[in-house]
């Protein structure tokens, strides 16, 4: 108990990152069906769901890449048809923004990071939003456990092979996947005059939206 170690002071990991096209080339050489794009100084690899586990395992085990850390796993919902973002156009006069696509997709983004080589990139997988399914990567990165549960909870994506795919942040008996674009924001309608009684939560209609 008498030795007290003072933390050693290091200069942290500052190795210069590999250039992005070198990274992209290393993966597209091995997996020609992967598409690499670059924007805002960031590399994104678009992978099909059936190659996902293989690509991630390669990224983790390859010596040059050495992506030991899965930083983030998140979902974005791109709904089918016309999705109107600005819903108050009639009252404000602001331009009405629309996002249109034919097939609704849920895009799942994996941010991979290397601790020794100091580089990172993003892997993007898309799955149709009416029956979203992806292979689970918990065998490759254990940290994906909570993240995949969260994507399941909020988007409904079923990860095949996940040890315990249950809701994590919403109550266990919740119906619906809140972060999808067709799920309403919820809450109560707030009139600015005290003329409306707001019923307690269990008597409210879940489809009451703000606007």
């Amino acid at each position: 108990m008498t030795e007290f170690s003072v933390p050693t002071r290091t200069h942290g990991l500052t190795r210069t990152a590999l250039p992005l096209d070198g990274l992209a080339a290393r993966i597209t050489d091995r997996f020609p069906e992967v598409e690499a794009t670059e924007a805002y100084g960031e590399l994104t690899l678009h992978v099909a769901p059936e190659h996902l586990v293989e690509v991630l395992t390669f990224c983790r085990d390859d010596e040059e890449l050495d992506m030991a850390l899965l930083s983030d796993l998140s979902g974005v919902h791109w709904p089918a048809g016309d999705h109107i973002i600005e819903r108050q156009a009639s009252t404000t006069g602001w331009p009405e923004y629309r996002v249109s696509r034919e097939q609704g997709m849920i895009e799942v983004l994996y941010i991979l990071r290397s601790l020794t080589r100091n580089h990172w990139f993003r892997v993007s997988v898309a799955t149709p939003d009416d029956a979203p399914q992806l292979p689970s990567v918990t065998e490759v990165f254990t940290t994906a456990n909570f993240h995949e549960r969260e994507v399941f909870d909020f988007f409904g994506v079923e990860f095949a092979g996940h040890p315990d795919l249950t809701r994590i942040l919403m109550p266990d008996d919740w119906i619906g996947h809140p972060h999808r674009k067709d799920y309403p924001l919820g809450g109560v309608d707030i009139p600015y005059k005290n003329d409306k009684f707001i019923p307690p939560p269990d008597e409210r209609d879940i489809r009451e939206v703000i606007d």
Partner: protein
Amino acid sequence: MAIDPRTEASLSDDVLELFVEGADWESVVDAVEDETITINMGPQHPSTHGVLRLVLDLDGETVTRLTPIVGYLHTGIEKNAEVRTWVQGTTFFTRMDYLAPLFNETAFCLGVEKLLDIEVPERAQAVRVILMEFNRIASHLVWLATGGMELGSTTMMVFGFREREHVLDLFESQSGLRMNHAYIRPGGLAQDVTEDFVDRCEALLELLPRKIAEYEDLLKRNPIWNDRLRGIGPLDAETATRYGVTGPLLRAAGVPFDLRKAQPYSGYEQYEFDVPTETAADSYARFLLRIEEMRQSMRIIRQALDTLPGGPVMVADKHIAWPSQQSLGVDGIGNDPEYIRHIMGESMEALINHFKLTTQGFTVPAGQVYLPVESPRGELGYAITSTGTNKPYRVHVREPSFVNLQAADIMARGQMVADVVVVVASLDPVMGGVDR
């Protein structure tokens, strides 16, 4: 008449009865399968750092499995931000990790600025660094205070909150709020720092080193503190990386990974500081590490204060800059009379611009960015998706507490129930960040 219990018929067929005479307890009990007791800790519990529910599978007093159940503070911030403008997003995201709100704000604003492809003025960058490092000190003080209280040292609780008050006074004098300040906006700061900002920071930099040395003295050699923290909650580097753990836990395992060095943002590359690491990888190492991080933070603040540049604190582009001109005038409310006169009397375009910026907000080009910063708990990343409108399409927050909680299971196995408190305390989870 003597009844030999071993030959009498048992009371019921499905009740297991064991007859032990004293010395043969071990052999008899071990022959039977172990039963684990499952108990529930929380969500309302004095020692679980907020609304965290832990389900412990115990074999006697030893933990065989720990399952964290989260979601009791889920606020739907990410979805709510999709119906608010980019600047209003700052107000929402700042309430996620409420012990380090300036980190949330900075990470979000840096992401928006990356999409907008603008350069923040140097003065704003330096002030951001100073405020963030003070926030790191405040967050570590809360960790020391609550960790100490949970382990029984109420003195540490009182000391930690006493010092934190001084840091909060500084924040209040600059942004107007003690916590959850929406001070860092896309493009710079909401308003310039006050005239006595440097003096206040200097006063704090004089006060804090003495106090931190005091806390070290209080706890470092304390036999109870040592017994309760040494060897508890081990997490080696390989397991930590597999579980995605970053921050002080990873550095206590020997990996010198700090995003301020690896991917510098907001001018960190110009400051000289060290990244403390430890090799013991237990809770005591994390305690020493956080104290050392506070010292390094003060070093950064010293350098940033010495080289604080002048100039504006918001980008010059009038279509993005938050039009907040404030000075203490006759009305006492704070609206700058010169600015009001300009937009009301002189320039119609300025009025329209002001109106549009404060109601509709600016639009951000379409794209996806991921921007991580080094928060007191680890890698705090914002994955922002924009479709070219005035509202974020989707923002996902990679919160370090959410990811680090997965390692609680592996850290607590084989330890006693009382050590679970220490394990959760050394993880430093903030439930607002875990549940968002």
